[in-house]
């Protein structure tokens, strides 16, 4: 196989941060090449350089045997490089078709847009991807996973020779990811070279041929996937071996004697929607499992009052609460870590410190209404050390952090608060294995301290490994609540896809 | 017969001068049992054209027009005439088939005020002009003022700045002029509102700068009457009389008379002596 793409000695510096330091990468035609590394290792930066978004400080980009100097993504597209960016690059108010063909619209003989032609192409692509998407709906109204597929479709429509997928599976369920892999294999057969970034080890072993590992912006090594193991790769990534990702469940303590933290006697989002009820106990992790769009996020948002709710009857620690507003939920000690960190979780222009203390500023005000900066900074430093946020200091702008580190900042905000009931919506999305393990340990630590945690996750292993109980969602309704040994992948999947609704009176 | 409908289109209504016109029109209309519709162009000639068009749609019999721009209003005047409306311009004239013009002479007003100023300064000294919105009546006043100054070789015009005919703007601009021209002795403002702003600046600077203006607004008269006033004269116009005359002329025309094309209402220079007995 011939090398179609070569990166040599790429260096890139952002201010004081050396994001990349002499990275080499070679990809052959028809090869799926995995790029591995911790959060902030420089994977996305490397891909952005390849896509002409950033200019490298040093190093050469060779595509098809020719050295290229991309000055914009436009240039990259022209030489056959397409990228699915880690950060969505969709226009929220345009529909999927307009988004897919943005910048490369098809025209009819009058030079006007040919909507039907584009629509047909889009339909064909989505059929190939095996997803159904409402093509006339604004993409912001689509679920995250659907948006991700629009991104994928957009890149596929470019018919590029080199396709870069920067964490495309982060918002997909395993079934959807499997779809994607089928498409990737087909592309591979057609000779397309792919660079695949993911924090899911098993995915790498499922589709990839070779793997390159980065650590702290430096090249660590490459390997044939068949000739390596998860543990080897993890060691290359983090510099040591990791043991048991999931901390042991405190199963022994699971019993009805545990106090109820939150009793959701009824929650009905829409007049014609299903009524759900469940209880959350102190010291447990309750999983919300289900397919994409099964309504877990909606329920969580309705619960804390972020979205209007038709009927809601909730008591927190035995006190009935209205929870009309996230602020009321906060007062009641209920916090939500949103699904989409960039648009819902973070204030990108704020520093790490300011993001962490955002909803807890009263804590740093004594009698006077002034923020005691010192205390605030110390807390932020403490938190970011605790969960290992990789940044020069707590004054760094959050918008410049890598995806995983951004997620940790949102987590830190809630850990810094008094809330004893936390709803984590996809908390480990885009988080590297090392950090993931830390977050799991952290969640477990919280439950030991008496926190009650709801974890919404589309990752089955995580649901199975972490949750004391699992509520399985289907079409907006909780169809069953699994407990103890019945928490198993196939069981969860069975209920998520075919289970009958639990009827509550 | 249905009551007479009168339209009054004013160039602005944020100025006592024009508010007085409006009041006079209201009084006159009530006394003859006519209905009156007033519009405010806010110095926007496009809006005034629309206003006149609306009044035409409203089927008025008489249009009393105080144009913000003589040239720009001409097509609206034509339309009004075509609709058989008697058009009398007030205060400033308009081009086009106007039946009659009742108004003061802005050029004369500027000239009279500035001649008085120059005489008071004994024909020599630095003076400044406080300009206003670039509309013809104002431009004419400035032209008249400059014409007056040319008769006095000792008078030196050192600054012309725009006070936008508003007190606050005039105040700041005058402060600046006073700073940059410490030997300033006289000042002409294109209207009384600007003059009152300038007066505040002059008074708080403690400098002896004589001020003249145009209009004859009550506040200006009050200021002129004050002892030791820096505000020495204003070239008064007669808003109330202009409206009364205009309405009279319009009615005459309506009844079949052929009024003169121009009915000048002379301006009158009001200095301290005349101020006590002067009133719009």
């Amino acid at each position, binding site marked *: 196989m011939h090398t179609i793409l070569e990166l040599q000695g790429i260096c890139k510096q952002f201010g004081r941060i050396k994001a990349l330091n002499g990275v080499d990468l070679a990809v052959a035609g028809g090869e799926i090449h995995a790029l591995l590394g911790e959060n902030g290792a420089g994977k996305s930066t490397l891909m952005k350089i390849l896509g002409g978004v950033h200019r490298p400080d040093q190093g050469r980009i060779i595509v098809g045997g020719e050295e290229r100097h991309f000055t914009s993504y436009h240039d990259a597209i022209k030489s056959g490089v397409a990228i699915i*960016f880690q950060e969505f690059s969709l226009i929220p108010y345009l529909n999927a078709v307009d988004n897919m063909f943005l910048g490369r619209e098809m025209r009819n003989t009058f030079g006007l847009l040919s909507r039907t032609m584009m629509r047909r192409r889009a339909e064909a692509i989505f059929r190939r991807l095996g997803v159904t998407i409402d093509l*006339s709906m604004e993409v912001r109204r689509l679920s995250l996973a659907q948006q991700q597929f629009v991104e994928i479709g957009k890149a596929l429509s470019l018919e590029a020779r080199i396709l870069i997928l920067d964490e495309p599976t982060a918002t997909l369920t395993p079934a959807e990811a499997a779809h994607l892999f089928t498409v990737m294999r087909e592309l591979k057969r057609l000779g397309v070279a792919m660079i695949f970034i993911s924090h899911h080890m098993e995915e790498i072993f499922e589709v990839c041929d070779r793997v390159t590992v980065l650590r702290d912006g430096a090249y660590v090594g490459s390997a044939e996937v068949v000739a390596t193991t998860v543990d080897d790769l993890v060691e290359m990534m983090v510099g040591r071996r990791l043991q048991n990702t999931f901390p042991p469940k405190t199963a022994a303590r699971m019993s009805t004697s545990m106090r109820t933290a939150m009793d959701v006697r009824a929650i009905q989002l829409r007049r014609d929607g299903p009524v759900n009820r469940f209880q959350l106990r102190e010291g447990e992790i309750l999983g919300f499992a289900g397919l994409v769009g099964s309504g877990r996020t909606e329920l969580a948002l309705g619960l804390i009052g972020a979205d209007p709710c038709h009927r809601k009857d909730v008591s927190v620690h035995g006190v009935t609460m209205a929870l009309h507003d996230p602020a009321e939920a906060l007062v009641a000690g209920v916090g939500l870590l949103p699904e989409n960190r960039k648009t819902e979780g973070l204030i990108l222009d704020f520093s790490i410190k300011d993001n962490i203390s955002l909803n807890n500023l009263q804590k740093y005000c004594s009698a006077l209404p002034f923020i005691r900066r010192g205390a605030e900074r110390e807390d932020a430093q403490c938190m970011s050390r605790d969960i290992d946020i990789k940044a020069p200091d707590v004054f760094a702008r959050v918008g410049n952090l890598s995806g995983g580190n951004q997620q940790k900042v949102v987590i830190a905000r809630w850990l810094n608060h008094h809330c004893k009931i936390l709803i984590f919506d996809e908390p480990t999305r885009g988080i590297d294995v090392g950090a993931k393990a830390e977050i799991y340990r952290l969640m477990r630590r919280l439950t030991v301290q008496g926190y009650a945690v709801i974890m919404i996750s589309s990752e089955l292993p995580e649901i199975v490994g972490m949750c004391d109980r699992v509520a399985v969602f289907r079409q907006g309704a909780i169809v069953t609540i699994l407990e103890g040994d019945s928490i198993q992948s196939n069981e969860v999947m069975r209920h998520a896809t075919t289970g009958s609704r639990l009827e509550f009176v | 017969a249905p009551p007479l409908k009168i339209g009054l289109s004013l160039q602005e209504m944020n100025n006592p001068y024009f508010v007085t016109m409006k009041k006079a029109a209201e009084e006159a209309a009530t006394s003859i049992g006519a209905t009156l519709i007033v519009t405010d162009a806010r*110095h926007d000639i496009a809006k005034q054209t629309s206003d006149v068009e609306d009044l035409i749609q*409203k*089927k008025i019999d008489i249009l009393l027009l105080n144009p913000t721009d003589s*040239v*720009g*209003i001409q097509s609206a005047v034509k339309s009004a005439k075509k609709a058989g409306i008697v058009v009398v311009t007030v205060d400033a004239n308009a081009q086009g088939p106007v039946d009659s013009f009742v108004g003061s002479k802005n050029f004369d007003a500027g000239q009279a005020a500035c001649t008085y100023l120059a005489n008071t300064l004994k024909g020599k000294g630095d003076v400044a002009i406080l300009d206003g919105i670039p509309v*013809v009546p104002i431009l004419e006043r400035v032209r008249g003022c400059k014409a007056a100054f040319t008769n006095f070789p000792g008078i030196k015009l050192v600054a012309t700045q725009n006070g936008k005919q508003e007190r606050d703007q005039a105040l700041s601009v005058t402060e600046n002029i006073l700073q940059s021209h410490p030997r300033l002795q006289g000042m002409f403002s294109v209207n009384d509102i600007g003059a009152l702003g300038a007066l505040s600046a002059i008074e708080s600077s403690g400098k002896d700068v004589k001020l003249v203006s145009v209009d004859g607004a009550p506040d200006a008269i009050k200021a002129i009457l004050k002892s030791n006033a820096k505000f020495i004269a204003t070239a008064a116009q007669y808003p109330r009389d202009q409206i009364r005359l205009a309405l009279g002329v319009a009615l005459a025309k309506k009844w079949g008379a052929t009024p003169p094309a121009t009915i000048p209402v002379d301006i009158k220079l009001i200095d301290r002596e005349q101020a006590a007995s002067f009133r719009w």
Partner: protein
Amino acid sequence: MNSSESHKVDTGIDVSVGIRTRISLARFAKGPVCYPLVGLMMVCLVMVTMTDAFLTPDNLINVGRQVSINAIIAVGMTCVILSGGIDLSVGSVMALSGTLTAALMIAAVPPALAIPIGFAVGIAVGLVNGFCIAYAGMPPIIVTLATMGIARGIALVATGGYPIDGLPDWFEFFGRGDVFGLQTPILIMLLVFAVMYVVLDHTPFGRYVYALGGNEEAARLSGVRVARYKLLVYAISGLCASIAGLVLTSRLMSGQPNAGVSFELDAIAAVVIGGTSISGGRGSIIGTLIGAMLLGVLNNGLNMIGVSPYVQNIIKGVIILLAIYISRERSKRLS
């Protein structure tokens, strides 16, 4: 619905028509144009009940003519606002280009040259705006605030503040003439709207305008040449302003260097009342037409009723608030 379903069985062609109508009606009811239209109708209704003079064919044409200038400017403004920017210089550009055309005509330059030169100046100011915003990365509001002063200053310096008079009689055509009984300004306005409708809805450029306002960074990452299209957007706004300048100059039969003060606010109001999001990315050109009409009807109707100009300020403000409130509430309930 039933009928289209039954059709489904019969033929293929009818179905698609049936569905399409259904979709476009539904889209309309949910779409951004519906609520402004409701607002406009309500205001018209009030005017009709308050005065007989409002609902006469003559007066409606009158309103149309009066609306035209603001509406034409608002077309360019829609484009700019959709792209996530704003253009405060439109009023000044209108004045500058109008006086220039008038001055050239007076100087015996043939109209076939004078009028395009007027447009060219509008486009030129737009390009300056666009360049500063798109290539130098300066904020639109301050750039266009600056060029607003500059354009006005040039118009005033060039004319000495006096209007330019003495245009040939035929020049009335653009502002008060008619073509087959249709008023020229209304015709020009409709033409400008039609062109921009096609551009925004049926050309790639139109997509890019929406994309810029929706998520500029994403548009760049999709390979759209962001700066180039931004530049174009401001040029279009300048062009629209200078078309409005031609109509105004003809309507007033003179070049007015101080015309159009605060017209930018009217244009922005028309755009936003028309349902276009002030932060860009969402909206429609038809909405802008409705918004401009609503403002025009308000101005005309209040004059017709004979409301005191002082009170007009208050009523206009309240009605605008109500119109926006209603459209907000109803669209919220739907989503």
